[in-house]
C-alpha cells in the first residue's frame, strides 16, 4: 500500500486560534480522499499547507515522499490546486489562462496551446475559449479552475470545496468530472462541507472539526457509526412525545432529539423504519409524520461530537 499524502501532527496557528491542532492523514495513492467538515474546521488550511502555500507551525507533511516545507519545489511539480482562492486571471481568456500556466510550467508554446485546447474541449469550454473569464458562469469558471490545475498533469490534485456555491446542475457536472479523474490514477484530496459529496466521491473520509480529525473511515463505516439516515417522527398528539422517544431510543445508540413535537435520531439502516412503525402501532401511538432521509453534515456532527456545527450554534443563539 502506498500513500501519496502523509501528514503527522500538523499544527497551524493564526494569532490565538489553532486552525489545525494536530492533523494526521494517510491518503492512498490513486484514491479520492474526502476531508469533511464545517466552515472554519481547518480544511482549507490543511490544503494550503499541502499545496506549499502556508508553512505549518508544527508537525510535518509529505506528498509523494517529498516534505512540503523542505522540498516545496518538488511538491509543486507533483500537485495541482483548485480552490476558491487559487483562481485564474479574470481579464484573460480561458485559452490564455491555460496557456500561461503551460508556459510557466515549462511547456513549449505549441505544446501549451494544444494542451490548453484539449483541456478546454474536455471541460466543454471550447466555445468560450476566446472569451474573457469574467464573462463565464459560475460553473464554467469552476471547470476552468479545475482545468488550470490539470495543465501540468499532476499526480496529486487538491480540490478545495469544488462545488460550494454551485447550482445543482453544475454540481452534478463537477462530480462527473471528479469521477472521471479518478479513473486516471490521480490521487485526489477533496474538501467539502457536504456529506453527500464526500459519500459520492470519496473512498475514504476524514471528518474534521476545530482543527482535529474526529473520525475517519470509508463512507460505509462512517455511516454505520454515525447513522447516515435520519429518522423523524411526529406524533399526532404532543402527549405521545415521551412514548415516541422511548421507542426510538431503543433502535439507536444516539440520544434522540426533540424539536417542537418532532423526534429525530440518526439511524444506520432503512430496516429501522418498519420496526419503529410496528412498535408505535403496538403501543397505540398515532403518527402524524414519519420520514427517513439522508443525514446532513450537521447531524453527523451531532452524533460524532455531541455538538452541532458552529454555524448552526451561532444561528440558534
Amino acid at each position: 500500500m502506498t500513500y501519496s499524502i502523509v501528514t503527522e501532527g500538523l499544527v497551524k496557528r493564526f494569532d490565538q486560534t489553532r486552525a489545525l491542532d494536530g492533523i494526521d492523514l494517510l491518503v492512498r495513492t490513486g484514491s479520492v480522499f474526502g476531508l469533511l467538515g464545517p466552515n472554519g474546521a481547518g480544511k482549507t488550511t490543511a490544503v494550503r499547507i499541502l499545496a506549499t502555500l502556508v508553512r505549518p507551525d508544527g508537525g510535518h507533511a509529505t506528498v509523494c515522499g517529498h516534505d512540503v516545507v523542505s522540498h516545496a519545489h518538488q511538491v509543486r511539480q507533483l500537485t495541482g490546486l483548485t480552490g476558491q482562492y487559487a483562481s485564474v486571471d479574470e481579464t484573460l481568456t480561458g485559452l490564455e489562462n491555460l496557456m500561461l500556466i503551460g508556459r510557466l510550467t515549462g511547456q513549449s508554446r505549441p505544446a501549451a496551446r494544444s494542451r490548453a485546447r484539449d483541456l478546454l474541449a474536455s471541460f466543454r469550454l471550447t466555445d468560450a475559449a476566446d472569451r474573457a473569464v469574467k464573462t463565464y458562469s459560475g460553473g464554467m469558471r469552476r471547470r476552468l479552475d479545475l482545468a488550470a490545475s490539470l495543465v501540468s498533469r499532476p499526480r496529486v490534485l487538491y480540490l478545495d470545496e469544488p462545488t460550494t456555491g454551485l447550482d445543482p446542475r453544475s454540481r452534478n457536472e463537477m462530480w462527473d468530472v471528479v469521477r472521471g479523474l479518478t479513473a486516471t490514477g490521480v490521487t485526489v484530496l477533496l474538501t467539502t462541507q457536504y456529506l453527500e459529496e464526500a459519500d459520492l466521491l470519496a473512498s475514504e473520509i476524514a471528518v474534521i472539526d476545530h482543527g482535529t480529525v474526529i473520525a475517519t473511515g470509508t463512507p460505509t463505516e462512517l455511516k454505520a457509526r454515525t447513522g447516515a439516515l435520519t429518522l423523524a417522527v411526529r406524533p399526532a398528539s404532543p402527549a405521545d412525545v415521551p412514548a415516541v422517544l422511548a421507542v426510538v431510543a431503543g433502535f439507536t445508540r444516539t440520544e434522540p432529539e426533540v424539536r417542537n413535537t418532532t423526534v429525530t435520531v440518526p439511524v444506520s439502516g432503512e430496516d429501522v423504519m418498519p420496526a419503529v412503525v410496528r412498535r408505535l402501532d403496538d403501543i397505540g401511538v398515532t403518527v402524524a409524520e414519519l420520514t427517513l432521509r439522508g443525514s446532513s453534515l450537521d447531524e453527523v456532527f451531532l452524533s460524532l461530537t455531541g455538538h452541532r456545527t458552529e454555524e448552526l450554534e451561532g444561528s440558534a443563539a
Partner: protein
Amino acid sequence: MTTISTTVMDSTVSDNTEDLGTLAPRVGPVEGLRQTFSLSWRTLVQIKHNPAELIDFSIQPVMFLLLFTYVFGGAIGGSPHAYLMFALPGIIVQNSLFTTLNTATGLSTDLEKGFFDRLRSLPIARFAPLSGRILADLAKQVWAILLLLGIGFILGFRIGTIPNPPLGVIAASGLVLVATLALSWVMVLVSMLAASPEKVQIFGFVVVFPLTFTSDAFVRTASMPGWLQAWSKANPVSLLSDAMRGLMVAGPAAKPVAESLLYAAAFTIVFAPLAVRAFRRRV
C-alpha cells in the same frame, strides 16, 4: 464527460512515473527569467482585453501634456512653447511615477483575486510574479516615454543638449527607468501591506500626488513660500526633473543626475528588503 476527461488525463500515469525520479530540485535562473517573461506577457495581454488600461497609460499622459502646455503654459511659462521646453521632462517624470502605482494596484488585485495563490502553487521561481509584473510595467513606461517625446516633438519640443541629442534622450529615459524601478520596491511594499487595490489607490492619491506636485516638475520653485521651496529642493521628484532637463534641454546635469541616482540607490537599499520581507510574509 467522464470519458472525455479520461482521454485528457490519459498520459498522466505514464508521464509521471517517468517524471518521478527527475524532479528538479530548484528553479534554474534561465527558467526564472523565462517565467518572468511569461508573466510579463500576461500583464501586457490584459491591455488587449481592457481598453481602459490603454487610456490609463497612453491617453492620460498625452492629455496631461496638452493641458499643461496649452492651458497653463502661457500663464506659467510665458508662452506654450517656452513652457513645453520646461515642463516636458517634468511631465515624463510625473507620468512615470504615477505609472508605478499600476505595479502596486496590479499586485494587490492579484493577491485579492487569488491569482497569486495559483501562481505560488506552481513550480515557478518565487520572484517571478514580482519580476514579471515589474518588467511589464517598465515596458509600459518605455511606451509612455516614447509617446510623450513623440507628441512633444510634434508640439515643438527640441532637444537642446548639444553635441549629442540622441544620447541625451537615452540617458534621460534610462534615468527615469532606474528611478521608477527603485520606486517599484515601495509599490511592492504598499501592495503587500494594503488590504485591497482601493487602498493602494488612496496611497497614490495621498502620497504620490502631493509628492509630484510639490516639486519643480511643473513650475519653478521661486514663487513658492520659503518652507515649500526648502522641501521642493530636497524632493527627489525635483532632482529627477532637474536631471532630465539637464540631459535633454539645458542646465547642469551631472549634479542632479548623481543625486537622483543616490536617491534611487537609497530607496532600493531601504525598501527592497522591506518589500521582499513583506512579500515573503504575505505569500
